[in-house]
């Protein structure tokens, strides 16, 4: 085969392919476009979160948390409950090995 013949053969364009539903199948597999409302909802949520953080009575909430935790720490009942949970979990784990 001569170089010219090979050139001509190689330059033969690829045969055209009918779409035959190819485009439709690509479109079906495409992720749905982000709805403009979704972006608006996210923005509103972010603004609400910032406002909530700004106006949240942080000091009062902290005081309550400190008070409750110190009471729990001094409570015999709470200590007993914690002990019961630990012992139960320990025995449950032992039981699972049998």
């Amino acid at each position: 085969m001569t170089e010219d013949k090979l050139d001509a053969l190689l330059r033969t364009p690829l045969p055209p392919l009918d779409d035959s539903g190819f485009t439709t199948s690509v479109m079906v597999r495409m992720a749905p476009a982000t709805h403009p409302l979704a972006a608006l909802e996210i923005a509103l949520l972010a603004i609400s979160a910032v406002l909530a953080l700004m106006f949240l009575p942080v000091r009062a909430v902290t005081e309550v948390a400190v008070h409750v935790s110190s009471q729990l720490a001094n409570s015999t009942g709470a200590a007993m409950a914690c002990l019961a949970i630990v012992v139960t979990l320990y025995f449950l784990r032992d039981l699972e090995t049998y």
Partner: protein
Amino acid sequence: MSEEGLVRQAARGDRAAFAGLVRQHQSRLRGFLRRLTKGDQALADDLAQESFLEAWRKLAQFRGQGSFAGWLLRIAWSRYLMQARRRKLEPLEETDERAGPEEMSVDMRLDLESAMRKLSAGERAGLTLCYALGYSNEDAAAILDLPPGTLKSHIARGRAKLKALLGDAA
């Protein structure tokens, strides 16, 4: 609408515009992938779909440098390479496959497509881009992400193999 307009619209999330681009480019992309997959139509179409989906996701990154068709072919080539590595379809670089005398006599009736299957992926891709799709060496090298010298070697080796394979059939 012009291709440039369709690309701009599609980059803004216009699915109809993107469908127009898929319709325009599907034949060329699927044909290229069929050559690469040695005529495996199902695999080629699957890769073409994945390439278009990747193009849709990355459309905002296409800044109009080079042609849209070239950008798509580049995505398709990288998809093909990933698939070939995963499936271990064939060595991606130069194959040592040469048509021996016996093989040549068997291959005498092979047409171009059959002969192409004897080439390495790089050779098939280079020859298809530069001849059947009419890209310049520089553009084809950019699509395949190869140095121009490597592409030229692929083409020279591919031509030599084809000449040997098709020689007696001519």
